[in-house]
C-alpha cells in the first residue's frame, strides 16, 4: 500500500447530469450544482473545505466558483489537462491532503462544449498551421486509425466495436443520469452514419455538457464523516513516451513504445499494491468503442487479443466477470472534458458503496479502477478500494 503516506478517501460525490441542457445554463453553474451535491452527500459544508481543485477545458476558470460557493479564502487550483483533467485534478487534491495542507478537499470538473467534433488549434499542440488546414488534425481520425491498426494486429473483428457500443447504451438505459438512455442493436450501430471508418456515429462519443464533483478526506476524518468511505488507494498520471501512437502525431518512429495509459495504469496498480486480476469494476476512456477495447489491454486488465472472447461473452457488462463503464461511459454520457474523469470515479465509488442502482455489479466489489486518456498523449489512473 502507500507505506506511511496518509490515506485519502472519497466521502461524497455529486453530478450535474451530462447531456445537452438549456443554452443559458453555464458550465460553471453546473459545476456549482455538482459541488453542492457532493458536499451534501459528504455531509460537510463549503466552509469546511481546506483545498479545492477544479478542471474545465472551455468553460471558464474554475476558481471563479468561489464567487457562488462562498468566499472562504480557500486555496483553489485550476487544472486544464484535456481528457485527463479529472484524474489530474483528483491527484492534485489528494497530494494536498497527503502533504498536510488540509484534511478535506473538493474536486470539481465541468464543461459545456459546442455540438460536433472538437476543433483544435495546431499551435496549441506545437504544430504548424498546415497540419490543421490540410485536414489532418481531427481527433476522430486518430481513434479510427488506432482502432484499425489494433484490430488488424490482434485479429479482432470490426463487429466488436458495435458490441462495445451496444453494451454502453444498455448501461445508459440503466443509469438515470445518462444522456443516451435508449438501447441500440449491433446492426443499428453498424449501419449508422459512417464518421471515420470503421467508426460509425454511435461508436464515437460526443462532446457534451455536465459537471462532476467529489469530496476527499484524510483517512481518519473519512471514517468519522462517512459510513462507507472509498479509499483512493492510488492515483498516477503520465505523459507519452517515445514510440507510442498518440493523437495529433504527424509521425511515429518504427520502434513501438508503451502508451501513457500503460505507464499510468502500471504505476497506479503498483502504488495500490493490487494486481489487474483483483479489479472487479473498471472505468476506461471510451472516446470511441475501439478505445475501450485497446485500453482493456493497455491498462493490463486483459491480454492483447483476449477482448474478442471477453466481449463476445458479455463479460464486460455489469453482471460479467470484468464490468467496464457500467454507467454507459463516454459513449452514453458524452464527454464534458473537464468532468469526464470525475464521472468515472463517481461511478466506481457508487459501485463499491453498493449505491449503483439498476447497474449495480453483484457480489460486493471491493476493488475498482479508473483510466482517462487524452491529447496529446496523457493518462491518469486511479485505484479505489473499500
Amino acid at each position, binding site marked *: 500500500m502507500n507505506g506511511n503516506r496518509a490515506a485519502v478517501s472519497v466521502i461524497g460525490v455529486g453530478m450535474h447530469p451530462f447531456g445537452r441542457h438549456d443554452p443559458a445554463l453555464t458550465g460553471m453553474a453546473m459545476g456549482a450544482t455538482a459541488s453542492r451535491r457532493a458536499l451534501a452527500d459528504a455531509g460537510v459544508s463549503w466552509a469546511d473545505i481546506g483545498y479545492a481543485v477544479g478542471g474545465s477545458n472551455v468553460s471558464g476558470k474554475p476558481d471563479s466558483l468561489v464567487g457562488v460557493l462562498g468566499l472562504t479564502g480557500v486555496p483553489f487550483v485550476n487544472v486544464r489537462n484535456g481528457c485527463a483533467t479529472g484524474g489530474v485534478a483528483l491527484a492534485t487534491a489528494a497530494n494536498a491532503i497527503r502533504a498536510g495542507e488540509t484534511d478535506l478537499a473538493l474536486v470539481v470538473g465541468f464543461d459545456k462544449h459546442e455540438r*460536433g*467534433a472538437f*476543433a483544435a*488549434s*495546431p499551435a496549441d499542440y506545437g504544430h*504548424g*498551421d*498546415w497540419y*490543421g*488546414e*490540410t*485536414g*489532418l*488534425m*481531427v481527433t476522430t*481520425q486518430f481513434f*479510427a*486509425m*488506432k482502432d*484499425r*491498426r*489494433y*484490430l*488488424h*494486429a*490482434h485479429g479482432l473483428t470490426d463487429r466488436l466495436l458495435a458490441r462495445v457500443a451496444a453494451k454502453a447504451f444498455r448501461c445508459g438505459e440503466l443509469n438515470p443520469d445518462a444522456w443516451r438512455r435508449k438501447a441500440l442493436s449491433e446492426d443499428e450501430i453498424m449501419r449508422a*452514419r*459512417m*464518421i*471515420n*471508418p*470503421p*467508426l460509425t456515429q454511435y461508436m464515437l462519443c460526443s462532446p457534451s455538457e455536465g459537471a462532476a464533483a467529489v469530496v476527499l478526506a484524510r483517512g481518519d476524518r473519512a471514517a468519522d464523516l462517512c459510513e462507507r468511505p472509498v479509499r483512493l488507494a492510488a492515483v498516477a498520471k503520465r505523459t507519452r513516451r*517515445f514510440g*507510442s*501512437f498518440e493523437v495529433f*502525431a*504527424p*509521425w*511515429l*518512429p*518504427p*520502434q*513501438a513504445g508503451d*502508451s501513457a495509459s500503460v505507464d499510468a495504469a502500471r504505476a497506479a496498480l503498483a502504488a495500490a499494491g493490487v494486481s489487474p486480476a483483483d479489479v472487479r469494476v473498471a472505468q476506461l476512456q471510451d472516446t470511441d468503442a475501439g478505445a475501450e477495447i*485497446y485500453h482493456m489491454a493497455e491498462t493490463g486488465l486483459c491480454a*492483447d487479443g483476449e477482448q474478442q472472447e471477453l466481449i463476445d461473452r458479455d463479460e464486460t457488462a455489469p453482471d460479467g466477470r470484468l464490468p467496464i463503464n457500467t454507467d454507459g461511459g463516454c459513449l452514453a454520457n458524452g464527454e464534458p472534458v473537464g468532468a469526464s474523469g470525475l464521472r468515472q470515479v463517481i461511478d466506481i465509488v457508487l459501485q463499491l458503496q453498493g449505491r449503483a442502482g439498476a447497474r449495480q455489479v453483484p457480489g460486493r466489489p471491493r476493488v475498482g479502477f479508473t483510466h482517462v486518456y487524452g491529447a496529446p498523449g496523457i493518462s491518469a489512473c486511479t485505484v479505489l478500494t473499500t
Partner: protein
Amino acid sequence: MTPVEAALFSSLDPPRLAGARCARCGTVTFPAQAGCARCAGTDLATVALPDRGALWTWTVQAFEPKAPYRAPESGFTPYGVGYVDLGDVIVEARLVGDPATFEIGMPMRLTLLPLWPGPDGSAVVSYAFQPAGQPAGQPAGEDGASKDRTGEGG
C-alpha cells in the same frame, strides 16, 4: 506551385518530403524538428525521406472538419487519411485513391495534393500518398518499410 509549408518538402519536382535525422541516435522526425524526441539531442540534420512506403493504417474523413481545416474551392468531399511506413519513420498523410482498395501493408508512393489557389493564381500544394500500383503482398523491404511494429496496434 507553392507548398502549403515549405519546410515539409526537400523538393517539389520530384516530390520528396523533408525530415530530420538525429546525429546521436539516428531517430528520423517528420517534419524536421530541432530537438530529438528520443534522446533529447539537438544535432539534427535535414534529410530527404523515401517517396515509397507501406500503408500502416488508414481511415476516411467522412465529415467536413471545423476550422482550421480549409476545404477546396469546389467544396468538401470525403478524403483518405493514413500513416505510411517509410522505414525509418512512419508519416501521417492525406491519401489519394479509392478507399475501397486501401489495406494495411499495401505499397504507397508520394504525390502532390493541390489544395487551393495561391496569391499568384498557381496551386498551393501539400503532400499525399497513393497506392503504388504494385501487387499487394510484395516484400516490405522493397519499400524500405520497417518490420519493427508488425505485432502491435499502437
